[in-house]
């Protein structure tokens, strides 16, 4: 059985509990970004850019035969924290049912102290990432029901 969105969130919260220093959390996020696999060039278009990010971050989504939505993401090389954040969101939401993604409550962001970890402008980018992923969830859950 697939791990649920909330189970993954809880795992992330547990991982972040191990860090005392905000800088260690940031380092962890940066390292997640470094592990992102390069995405297909077809996703590096204006349509896939996340608006509201200071740096360029792309997000692609694909509904597969198992009726689950899979995300890919990437960012320009120097946008390391942004890449780490999208990587973390992908780990939470990718491979879930579109309807679950659309109505997911992402409580881990506050629980891991990410709201204080990132600047308000950066958090604006983070909010845009979440919004874009949820929009895909909504879109594909409708596609399915039609």
């Amino acid at each position, binding site marked *: 059985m697939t791990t649920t969105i909330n189970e993954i969130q809880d795992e992330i919260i547990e991982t972040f509990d191990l860090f005392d220093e*905000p*800088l260690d959390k*940031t*380092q962890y996020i*940066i390292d997640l970004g470094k592990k992102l696999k390069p995405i297909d060039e077809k996703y590096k278009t204006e349509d896939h850019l996340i608006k509201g990010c*200071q*740096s360029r971050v792309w997000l692609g989504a694909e509904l597969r035969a198992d009726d689950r939505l899979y995300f890919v993401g990437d960012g*320009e*090389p*120097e*946008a*390391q*924290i*942004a890449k780490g954040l999208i990587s973390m969101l992908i780990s939470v939401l990718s491979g879930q049912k579109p309807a679950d993604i659309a109505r997911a409550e992402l409580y881990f962001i506050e629980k891991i102290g990410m709201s*204080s*970890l*990132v*600047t308000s*402008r*950066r958090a604006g980018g983070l909010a845009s990432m979440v919004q874009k992923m949820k929009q895909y969830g909504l879109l594909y859950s409708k596609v399915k029901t039609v």
Partner: protein
Amino acid sequence: MHMKTMTRSAIAIDQIRSQFPILQETVNGKPLVYLDNAATTQKPAVVIDALSAYYHHSNANIHRGIHFLAEKATAAFEESRVRLQGFINAASPEEVIFTYGTTDGINLIAQTYGRQFIGPGDEILISAMEHHSNIVPWQMLCLEKGCTLNVIPVSEEGELDMEAFRTLLNERTKLVAIVHASNALGTINPVAEIIEQAHSAGAKVLVDGAQASAHLAIDVQELDADFYVLSLHKLYGPTGMGILYGKKELLNAMPPYRGGGEMIKEVTFAKTTYNDLPYKFEAGTPNIADVIAAKSAIDFVESIGKPAIAAHEQALLQYATDALSAIDGLTIIGRAREKVSVISFVMKGIHHEDMGVILDQQGIAIRTGHHCTQPLMQRFGITGTSRASFAVYNTTEEIDILAEGVRRAKKMLG
């Protein structure tokens, strides 16, 4: 270490720091290192106390009231005007108009002097290092009036191309609007020379002193500036308050800006006559508390003295330039010969936002981004920089923390 001793002996840094309550704050468990002074300076206790004292003991609307408090508030308000007149050495207090800040002052000039005296075919000359506040009001005016906006280029070092300035300046140039010191690069521009040459060509000159006013001595009469604008919040004073200096004959020739109370002499439905300077440009209840507290900010600056402040800040700038230059991969953007205490830099392979986040986690406040100078960033082929800017209360120890913080960020993001 030698530098530290020098800066310590020039001014009583501990005594100065003790006047700024906010410097005792901690951020992310670390002592605050506040190096975002080009955005806004912190406020000494005398300014905070003046604001509090006004609301505790003097609050009343000014100029119109006949009662005790109104008289008291009016006297304090006008005393601030005289204090600021002295600060910039204006010829008379009515040449000092209170505004909401530098941006407000520039818009006032664009909407009054600009609309009245600049027309189709005329030219306005600005520079490539202007803040958006000294670009957009002129673009708006040019769209409306059919005038042309010309731009003095900036060299790789971050200095104005004065040769190009002289070429661009011509008999159609009605106004030169130029920044005294660049907020993004720190460059101090040769405004006296610019004013002299502009006047020879028959153009008026507006100087944007937002960044310069906390660092350089300002004498509008010696400069022969036609207009000079500044914000008090960059000068240890309150936010939302600034001044516009204008030569009396120009201010008198200009139509009013906003209509409302205080700016009128007499109102009938047939015709309204306008008040004299400076009230003609001060419609509505002004920012009384902040204007009154501004006097305390000037008192603070003058208690130390601009020369002592400048010497301390120049020592910090040199120390920071040396410390940051020693970091591999770091490039300082803006290497003008004359600079105020602003140091902008980029780090190879690192986004400035990431730099800002990681420094913030170490308690270090700097500014990242385009600093409201997007055309200047385009000139250097970058989207933004990290910018540290120093005030009178900063120390070489704080610059050591900054340099160490930058190294830490580089290690984390490398």
